[in-house]
């Protein structure tokens, strides 16, 4: 007995939620004396109006796909991994060490190695909270959040004392060798005769993110491990009954989660900055939570939500640049989107369900 057709659940509800969020954002912009219509035009123009804008939007989206998938994997095991931020930072360290270790001849060799480095370091950073949760019962939300701070402090230390180029004033690592440079969209698309802004950041990592999205789907819904992760996430007592080892699932799910967060570094560290800089993650780990929430922990949903947040990030940056709308207000708009799509889901859902039930009844009467 379905209350609502599937398309309404998957498409209509998020759409209405986003429109509501934009409506209220408009009110806020109007309240500070700016024109909401101009603002939305600026955002859309900024995010999609030029190849450079599109590139930035995709670049941000790539970050969010990785962190969104990371949060979602853990969430399928009912683990709330708030530590994507720290795991992505450590992933950056892993990528940096790999890229600087060898004078890479070509990116096709550097990329797989860097992926392993990033994923390993991210997974290692997630392992400690996971072990503490599985064996000692320390709550994963608390430990992962603490590990964000430890990670930031660790990286701060390494960047000022260990990785810093001698004689430089900047707290950043040395530049990666030329052979570790990932082709950006301009270089990828040039052979097809498409002109793309050469200085914009979207790069090869975007396709790795797409691949991960697909593999995520396979893992969760097609493999035994995914089956066990979901079973454990739904009911720990049932998992025990079935002979699934809870500690094992907690640790494996968190390793995958941390690994995905760590993989983000091939985008921001290897693809964009081409060196490790301080605060390279820029909050993407936290945005991942919103992305997973909005995308209902489904790969397609995460992909779309990541693109939306990419648009909000890039469009928001343009907004504060051109319309002198303060950066903080752009954060307000992002928060409204999160609130309406995630937290206030039922506000849209309940009336819609009633509407569909009423429609269904009318149809039956006519028949």
């Amino acid at each position, binding site marked *: 007995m379905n209350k609502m057709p599937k398309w309404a659940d998957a498409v209509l509800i998020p759409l209405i939620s986003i429109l509501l969020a934009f409506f209220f954002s408009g009110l806020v912009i109007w309240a500070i004396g700016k024109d909401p219509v101009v603002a939305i035009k600026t955002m859309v123009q900024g995010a999609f109006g030029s190849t450079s804008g599109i590139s930035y939007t995709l670049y941000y989206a790539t970050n969010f796909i990785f962190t969104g998938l990371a949060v979602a994997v853990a969430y399928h095991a009912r683990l709330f991994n708030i530590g994507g931020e720290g795991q992505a930072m450590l992933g950056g360290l892993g990528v940096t060490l790999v890229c600087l270790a060898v004078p890479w001849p070509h990116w096709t060799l550097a990329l797989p190695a860097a992926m392993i480095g990033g994923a390993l370091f991210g997974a290692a950073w997630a392992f400690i909270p996971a072990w503490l949760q599985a064996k000692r019962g320390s709550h994963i939300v608390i430990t992962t959040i603490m590990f964000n701070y430890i990670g930031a402090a660790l990286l701060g230390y390494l960047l000022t004392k260990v990785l810093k180029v001698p004689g430089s004033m900047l707290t950043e690592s040395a530049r990666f060798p030329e052979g570790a440079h990932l082709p950006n969209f301009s270089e990828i698309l040039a052979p097809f005769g498409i002109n793309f802004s050469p200085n914009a950041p979207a790069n090869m990592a975007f396709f790795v993110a797409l691949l991960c999205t697909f593999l995520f789907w*396979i893992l969760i819904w097609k493999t035994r491990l995914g089956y066990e992760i979901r079973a454990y996430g739904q009911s720990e007592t049932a998992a025990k*009954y079935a*002979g699934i*080892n809870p500690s094992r699932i907690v640790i494996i799910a968190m390793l995958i989660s941390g690994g995905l967060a760590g993989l983000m570094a091939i985008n921001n560290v290897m693809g964009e900055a081409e060196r490790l800089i301080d605060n390279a993650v820029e909050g993407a780990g936290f945005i991942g939570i919103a992305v997973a929430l909005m995308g209902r922990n489904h790969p397609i949903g995460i992909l779309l939500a990541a693109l939306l947040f990419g648009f909000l990030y890039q469009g928001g940056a343009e907004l504060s640049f051109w319309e002198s709308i303060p950066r903080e207000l752009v954060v307000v708009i992002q928060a409204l989107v999160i609130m309406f799509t995630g937290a206030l889901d039922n506000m849209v859902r309940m009336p819609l369900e009633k509407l569909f039930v009423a429609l*269904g009844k009318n149809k039956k009467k006519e028949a």
Partner: protein
Amino acid sequence: MSVQNEAGRQETVAPTASAPAIELRGISKAFGPVQANKDISISVAKGSIHGIIGENGAGKSTLMSILYGFYKADAGQILINGQEVNITDSQEAIAAGIGMVFQHFKLVENFTVLENVILGAEDGGLLKPSLAKARKLLKQLSDEYELSVDPDALIEDLSVGHQQRVEILKALYRQADILILDEPTGVLTPAEADHLFRILEGLKEQGKTIIMITHKLREIMEITDTVSVMRRGEMTATVKTADTSPEELAELMVGRKVLLRVDKKPASPGAPVIEIENLEVVDEQGVRRVKGIDLTVHQGEILGICGVAGNGQTELLEVLGGYMNGTGNILMNGQEIDLSGKHSNGQTRRARGISHVPEDRHDEGLILEFQAWENMVFGYHHAPEYQKNALLMDNAGIKEMTQKSMDKFDVRPPNPKLEAKSFSGGNQQKIVLAREIERNPDLLLIGQPTRGVDIGAIEFIHQQIVALRDEGKAILLVSVELDEIMSLSDRIVVMFDGQIMGERLPSETNEGELGLLMAGITDTGGAADKPAEKAQ
């Protein structure tokens, strides 16, 4: 216990001349597309006990929730003593003289009886006057009815039977004239249930009106004056209890003829399948749950373990099922099994030929959010026949297998892609049963096979268990329903406080004797004699 009376078929009881204590007229309530109550009218005479019987999901609880102000009816009227009332919350229900005793008690565990009784009905800011008043009333009530409870005892120290009395006292303290009890005997021993019925009779004599919701036909026959039967949200009949029979009520509940007794041949037990020796189980809090028990189950027999819930039966099943640790010796088909959890879990047990239908299908047996096909391999998902290759599960093949199993076990609707939570209790249980029986186990552990299962499905489930026994399999049955134990088992073992109180043959015992054993009462050396030894 069957009261056969051909004369009084489906005679509806006409409202008495004086205003009935409670009258419902045309109550309807829908939740979205589900019509939980359809045009329900009943009238209960003052000073009578009225039973409402129906299967799970028939709408009994919804109706009572409307009466108590939890839900608002879409249509219809409620009349109390002939006066129409509008009940929108429980405070108004209490003001109208309605008291409710829920199936799951709503008591503050670390408060005393007195504190619980006055909770929410204090007279003022200071508790002392209310407490004194309540103490006086409690004294008076315990003299009048058999409602004695120590007013200063903490709730957590009381037995469930006594906790229930506190719930009744709460209602009486609030001057309830109409008492509604929802499945009151679910957690009681037979002796406690009898005591409850005596209390209810006493209350009735004092002019109180009692409505009792239950799914147990025996209780309806025993205590009620009139009974209403609900099926799929509708009131199918209201009859005088004296004019009906359990068979007729069952038919009214299900909508077709039902076999209430299990039809089975005498058992022909073979070699021992599982031999349990000196099993000890200590739970995570360090409490000894099972205290050195010995049991043997043979091929082709059903060993029934009865006892009030919480006397070690659950832990026994969990240890045998491989997800709780214990000490002792267990031989399965002559070979030892590991009880330490180091080399064993649910999956290794299944590999040894032990299938397990757990007591709690919502929390253990099923993943409610999973679709039927995913549940159909739950616990067996490592079996080679369910794998497509080294990496992927054979989802298409599993769906196909599920479809066959669902047809065979008459799961309705037979849709493998429906989430488990969308099935009724009986059909959920059939899914678990199909999964465990289709693996062709040597030993089937089965806990509370028909809890929350409708009568029609009970019949089917019992038939499946007996059929498995007749194939020569060993079955260890745990149930708190004495009827079920009596009718299914070939041998009965009574558990109390983690120990075996005695062993009986169903033909040589009765519910009274089992009831005493369940309460831990043995006549001298009663536990020692084991008449069933000859079954070997």
